[in-house]
């Protein structure tokens, strides 16, 4: 059954079906296998609907809308001009700023898909223009957005904390070290890439040019203020901050800059709705697919046979990392956490491992998995927003995945990367 479900999904995917089809037929194969017929398919419909309804997902269309408005108007260009005025002369400066901006925005907004659109959207044309290849640019945007899982607030860590009974505050502290380490390594890679591909730098801006760029960016700087100040300051939930950005973008572009007509507003809203629909139907179909994996108790069947009880702590950690990595390749990360954490819980407590370390390692795998084909909401979002083929979107990811796996191994052998902040806070 496992082979039939996963096999059907992957084969149909490779054959070039619209992606909702492999997921839905994969789930259907499971339904037929379990119930001996298609009479229960209304539950599949229920799961597709349930998958798109979580309240926290509303932040995604709202951030897409705000980003669309900013890009069509002037806000995005002015913000990037500001960054370029300060960092344009540095090798790899724009790419490193992009990585930083994705990490920051993703961390605060809690939505990696929104980050791909809101930060990647305006920055990608500039990166291309500056001389970075598209495959590098796309991979950078997707992977840097996924660092957000590790930096608080992190929905993945909250779910892990609740399911495993681990302190969420401690998890939040433990995620910061590996998150920043990954950002550092991505930045180094971006620098090396810029040097090796001889990406040109811009002439250094004078202070008066910088001053002018800053003046032009004053209004648009309200966006980071709304998102970062609003969320950390307890004014908005992430979803509300997204909607506030929409309102602010409307005021800026329609009233202050007067660069956007009502007709364009309608076109922007429609384009946002279209992108939302093609991504959300995959989230829904992915939920139906996860459902049948969970219902058929496939993870339990696979993990029951590998004898994890006899492994030492390192064996347990590696097994957990691999299981979550593979799980997140196919299934939505939150569902993977809900299903797998209870299965591993007895082994983790028996082996005496620090549950905070385990949680950080799991969150890292979840971050990797979200950017790893075939199932990855951030990949889908990038395809829909940038209108590039699937293959092109994922082609540049291997170096980034390699860095993330390297950090996973580091984390297993040097847990202090995660735990030092927590230990400092406790003592």
């Amino acid at each position, binding site marked *: 059954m496992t082979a039939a479900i996963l096999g059907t999904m992957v084969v149909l995917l490779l054959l070039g079906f619209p992606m909702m089809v492999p997921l839905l037929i994969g789930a259907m194969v499971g339904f037929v296998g379990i*119930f001996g017929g298609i009479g*229960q398919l*209304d*539950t599949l419909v*229920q*799961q597709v609907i*349930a998958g798109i309804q*979580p*309240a*926290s997902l509303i932040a995604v269309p709202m951030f897409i809308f705000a980003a669309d408005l900013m890009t069509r108007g002037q806000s995005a260009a002015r913000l990037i001009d500001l960054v370029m005025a300060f960092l344009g002369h540095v090798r790899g400066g724009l790419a490193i700023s992009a990585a930083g901006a994705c990490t920051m925005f993703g961390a605060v907004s*809690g939505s990696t898909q929104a980050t791909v659109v809101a930060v990647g959207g305006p920055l990608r044309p500039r990166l291309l223009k500056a001389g970075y290849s598209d495959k590098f640019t796309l991979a950078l945007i997707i992977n840097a957005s996924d660092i957000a899982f590790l930096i608080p*607030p992190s*929905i993945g860590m*909250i*779910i892990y*904390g*609740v*399911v495993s*009974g*681990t*302190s*969420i*505050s401690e998890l939040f502290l433990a995620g910061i070290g590996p998150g920043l380490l990954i950002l550092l390594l991505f930045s180094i890679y971006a620098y090396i890439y810029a040097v090796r591909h001889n990406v040109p730098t811009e002439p250094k801006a004078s202070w008066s040019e910088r001053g002018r760029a800053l003046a032009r960016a004053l209004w648009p700087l309200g966006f980071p203020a709304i998102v970062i100040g609003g*969320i*950390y*300051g*307890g*004014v*908005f*939930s*992430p*979803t509300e901050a997204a909607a506030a950005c929409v309102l602010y973008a409307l005021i800026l572009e329609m009233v202050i800059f007067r660069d956007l007509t009502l007709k364009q507003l309608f076109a922007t809203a429609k384009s946002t709705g279209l992108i939302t629909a093609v991504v959300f139907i995959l989230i829904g179909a992915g*939920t139906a697919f996860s*459902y049948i994996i*969970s*219902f058929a*108790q496939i993870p339990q069947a696979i993990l029951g046979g590998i004898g994890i009880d006899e492994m030492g702590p390192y064996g347990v950690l590696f097994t957990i990392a691999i299981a979550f990595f593979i799980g997140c390749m196919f299934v939505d990360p*939150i*569902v993977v956490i*809900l*299903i797998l954490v*209870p299965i591993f819980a007895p082994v983790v407590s028996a082996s005496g491992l620090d549950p905070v370390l385990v949680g950080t390692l799991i969150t890292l795998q979840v971050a990797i998995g979200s950017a790893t084909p075939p199932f990855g909401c951030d990949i889908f979002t990038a395809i829909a927003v940038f209108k590039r083929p699937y293959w092109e979107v994922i082609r540049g990811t291997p170096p980034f995945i390699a860095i993330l796996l390297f950090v996973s191994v580091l984390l297993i052998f040097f847990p202090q990367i995660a735990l030092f902040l927590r230990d400092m806070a406790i003592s």
Partner: protein
Amino acid sequence: DTWRYAFEEALDEVQGVFAQKFKEEVEANSDHEVQLFPFGTLGESDNILEQTQSGILQFVNQSPGFTGALIPEAQVFLVPYLLPEDEQQLYSFFRDSEAINGIFPELYAEQGLELLTMYPEGEVMVTSNRPIAAPADFDDVKVRVMTNPLLVSSYQAFGATPTPLPWGEVYGGLQTGIIDGHENPAFFIESTRTFEVQEHITRLGHNNFTTALMANKDFFDGLSEEDQQLIRNATDAAFEHILEYQQGLTEASLEAIEAAKPSITVTTLSEEERAPFRATTEQVEATFLEIGGPRAQEVLDQMKADLEAAGS
């Protein structure tokens, strides 16, 4: 056969402990296997209930607060100060209540569900960053509640600002101050770690979180007499087990919370302090009668009669 049983909490929370006992009893006394599906693994609370109605799952544990969207009468369990604060009285109410054993099974049956039992999960408490001793202390305090009109009405009557927020945003919301507090049983405050970002826990004594185990009715009716008895016995065993498990669970959870966060205060309001909160009951009852469905009055009257009987 393989029977599938889904519930709304994690395996080590109250519903999970109940489910594990049920599974153990069934498997020890028959050849049937029970597969357990904890919180989230087959969807949200409403999803698993629907799956049980359509027969994909055989058993589901859902709290009446959620079931209220389907069976409005079930919201009676959200009326404050209806259930007794005394443990023994509460337990005998759940054992012998005519409402639970007579009226509710009929209401659930109309939805294709066999109500097997209802049981308490623990006293509901309020967390906050400000000490609460009187309704005035609730002024401008945004308390997160489930989106249910009765809970909204209760907290309005208490003087607070009820604020619905999706559960996934509660921890972050408490941390940043979008909301100032929430209500839950002690074990849930402990397991969801929300105490980490709160200063006070107040015991108003206004409710005990109630939940219900049910089966798909066609499935249950189609079983042999023997299997039906097996399920009833397993339910009874799990029910007694959970009451025993609950003895001291609240205290143990509060101790664990205080050990993890020594600065937190836990306050039990005195009878005098509770009086003004208790005085709001009538107002919320009126809301219940308004939205509680055709048999709301009957259910409320019967509950009160049962509670009187349980008290004597």
